[in-house]
């Protein structure tokens, strides 16, 4: 088996992360290398071409496509206002006159004498790309974007929905195995990143929306509650554009699963600080996991290092691991031994395994594919 272990999620007090901020189409970069930026500061801007409205003038005027030039009032490149005359015919009797009005304010983009179609385009929309994390611009990619580097604490989740946002961290529960209920969610949590424990119920999700929290970080959720929240059954884990009122990040998975102590403690230690969070998850081809980034101090990187995330050599005895498949799903323990021989598991597959020791001293043999290293110093 090539996958001796799943690389795992990073939970670390100290990291230097770089985030590539790219426009979806060429535009202008508003900052320079070496500049310090805030999370809510625009770093690049682009003009998104306006919507296109085709109008078949030939059909509407009842003329051949190659004749429409004779009837046009506006030519390609001309500005038009909504309800302004685009084209008209010139009948002998005034009553039979037909005027074609522009359905939008914009510009005449093109006129086709093959199809008789006129394409109108709305004015461009300005897209501003924010810094997302407070930090230092370490690279400018002309016309496309920047790379922001920040010295921070970092927590990766396993799955999330909703896009980038930020807010003050507030811990709503007293322990990582406590369930987040509506009574934990109070009005003063509006615009904040609320950290819960093992599970959030469907009524608490409703309450979170009412309160107007910016983000929710939680151990687990039931799939049926996610379905109710989204309004559909999520088929493929490509998320980040959902609009449910807040960004949701699961640290452990689906079901009721206590948040890893390390994650809970780290977030608790930063209660009251600003965090940048993103629910964007993409599990196929180029994994993107949801994240909570808590920039240090003034938000400026003091690191001169270039390696954003340290790489590990492999798994070692004593490492903290999370079991990520039933029957012990969600349990956390440490690596007790790493037998090198393949072992037969109850399904009759021969796989590489590891022995995991739990807090109560008990041990279990688990396929290496079914554990996840809890990474980070």
């Amino acid at each position, binding site marked *: 088996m090539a996958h001796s272990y799943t690389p795992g999620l990073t939970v670390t007090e100290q990291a230097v992360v770089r985030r590539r901020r790219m426009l979806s189409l060429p535009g202008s970069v508003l900052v320079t290398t070496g500049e310090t930026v805030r999370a809510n500061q625009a770093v690049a801007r682009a003009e998104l071409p306006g919507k296109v409205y085709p109008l078949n003038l030939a059909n509407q005027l009842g003329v051949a496509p190659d004749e429409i030039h004779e009837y046009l009032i506006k030519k390609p490149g001309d500005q038009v206002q909504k309800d302004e005359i685009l084209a008209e015919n010139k009948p002998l009797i005034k009553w039979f006159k037909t005027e074609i009005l522009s359905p939008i304010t914009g510009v005449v983009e093109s006129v086709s004498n093959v*199809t008789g179609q006129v394409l109108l385009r709305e004015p461009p929309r300005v897209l501003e790309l924010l810094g997302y994390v407070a930090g230092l611009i370490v690279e400018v990619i002309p016309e496309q974007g920047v790379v922001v580097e920040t010295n921070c604490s970092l927590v990766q989740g396993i799955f999330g929905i909703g896009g980038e946002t930020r807010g003050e961290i507030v811990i709503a529960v007293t322990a990582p195995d406590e369930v987040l209920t509506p009574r934990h969610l109070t009005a003063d949590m509006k615009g904040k990143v609320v950290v819960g424990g093992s599970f959030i119920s469907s009524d608490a999700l409703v309450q979170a929306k009412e309160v107007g929290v910016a983000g929710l970080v939680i151990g687990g959720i039931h799939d049926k509650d996610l379905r109710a929240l989204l309004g559909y059954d*999520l088929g*493929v884990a490509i998320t980040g554009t959902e609009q449910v009122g807040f960004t949701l990040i699961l640290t452990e998975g689906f079901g009721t699963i206590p948040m890893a102590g390390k994650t809970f403690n780290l977030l608790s230690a930063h209660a009251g600080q600003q965090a940048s969070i993103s629910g964007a998850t993409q599990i*196929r*081809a180029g994994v993107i996991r949801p994240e909570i980034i808590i920039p240090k101090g003034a938000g400026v990187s003091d690191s001169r290092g270039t390696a954003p995330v340290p790489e590990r050599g492999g798994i070692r005895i004593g490492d903290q691991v999370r079991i990520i*498949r039933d029957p012990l799903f969600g349990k956390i323990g440490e690596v007790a031994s790493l037998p090198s021989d393949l072992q037969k598991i*109850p399904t009759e597959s021969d796989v590489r395994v590891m022995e995991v020791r739990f807090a109560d001293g008990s041990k279990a043999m688990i396929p290496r594919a*079914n554990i*996840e290293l809890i990474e980070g110093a």
Partner: protein
Amino acid sequence: MSVPNSAPIKPVITHPRNVIVATDCGSTTTKAILIEKVGDEYRQTYRGEAPTTVEAPFEDVTRGVLNAIAEIEELSGRKILDGDKIITPCCDAKTGVDIYISTSSAGGGLQMMVTGVVQNMTGESAQRAALGAGAIVIDVLASNDGRLPHEKIERIRTMRPDMILMSGGTDGGAVTHVVEMAEYISAADPRPRFGATYKLPLIYAGNKAAQPQVKTILGEKTALVLTDNIRPVLERENLAPARNKIHDLFLEHVMQQAPGYKKLIEMAGAPIMPTPAAVGVIMETIAKREHLNLIGVDIGGATTDVFSVFEGHFNRTVSANLGMSYSISNVLAEAGLANIMRWVPFTIDEQSLRNRIKNKMVRPTTIPQTLDELQIEHAIAREALRLALIHHKSLATALKGVQQERTISDVFEQQQSGKTLIDMLKLDLIVGSGGILSHAPRRVQSMLMMVDAYEPLGVTRLSVDSIFMMPHLGVLSTIDEKAATDVFVRDCMVYLGTCVSPIGHGKDGERCADYAITFPDGRVDQGQLSFGDLRIIPLASDQKASITVQPAKHVNLGAGVGVAVTREVQGGVVGLLLDGRGRPLQLPTDHDARVASLTRWYQAVDLYPKAG
């Protein structure tokens, strides 16, 4: 109908090819195999794999390739790498390889958007051309697809395909609709998925008369390539030129943008092929060589590809969101919980099952650890396979919109044009591939998953790809057919056996058919197959037997109701599967009765270990 899948131009290779290393760069794993000439025949000797390195932090596909090859080096003791280079040709018995070849589906494969004028005519032809070339079709736009013009433009703009294929109109016909579509594409100004600065490749394979206008409208904005019309007349498809252009542009444009592919192309001794195109080549080769009608399936983590060759017509479809890990949750969404649960021989509450499926989706590399989990995955696989075949049947059709001559005898059979080509009674062979089928702990599990999902009719042989090497052999067959055939026959295909499935229904225990099997040693095994029976008769892979089946009065084995059939059947690692469960397969609706039936069938074929 579609022409056979086209292969890239063969490179000229002068030195002997005794040692070959081949890789397939998948979305998650790069798999390498070593093929060596042993005596007069080629054999697959070692394999290695490593994570694919298209994404950050590596962003160079060749890193994964070199890692996978390094694993082969370790296992075989052969020195293949000299730093970052593959030593070619062989220097001595233990150094170098004669050629390196590769396929790729990394980075989400080749994603295409196709356009036509009439959705189920040129739209479908364009879709077949793109799918046959190994692409994932992300949308089919047509003049009559029901979307308003501005919706089409918005759609073109938001999609970021690797390539667009435009079709529409027969040669010399009206140009208006094709030109209109070109105008929409131009207005949308679509951008490619990779590389912000290069022009999007666009193949125009529509009405020849519209070529000048299309060139005027799109020549500047896209990397436009003009080729022959894929539907020159309504009655004929001509997919090969468009497919060849897709392959060329895939190499020239798309792969040049993907991280590290320039290096990979330089390393390889033959053109890199999209993985599904290579699998398609090997499927067609088997069908042609053995004069078979076949269905092949490759069920992966994200997608399920189905290939078919019926009466020489090749078709491929890809169900982009049916898979066993990344897309597992989508199988649940599309099939529905009840359809998955009908294959599970125990009770499990809905919430727990839904959570388990989502957990597999977010942690796709985990493996079933308990028997219950294995059975749930096998249940999901049955549904993914079933849905992918339904999708395939809808696209693998005769041409639609073609005038048919009807005689008086056709009056009562109002068949529409565009009937599916997939005829399960004429199907000779099912070939399964992909982790869940290739790596099932017991081979009979793979066999029953395919039988339950596809419900073969009559007499059908089944096989699986032993370790998923069909892509490698597909690309190999374009440069050395003998080597590919040798390895395919000896190391790749694992014949599971033959399934005999009468069509009809009856009460459990009622007579379905009588059978007599004559084994190679002359022994004859006679018996009765009752409805509700599932039985395995051992017959080794290298053995053939003759079976005579006399179906009951209302039962059909392909020759007609109640008509006896005698066939020569091939054995396999499982043997002969006599399936008396009836066709179409109907599972009891009552939960307890269904669990009892499943338990009885699974025990009858020794599907799972008893401890579970």
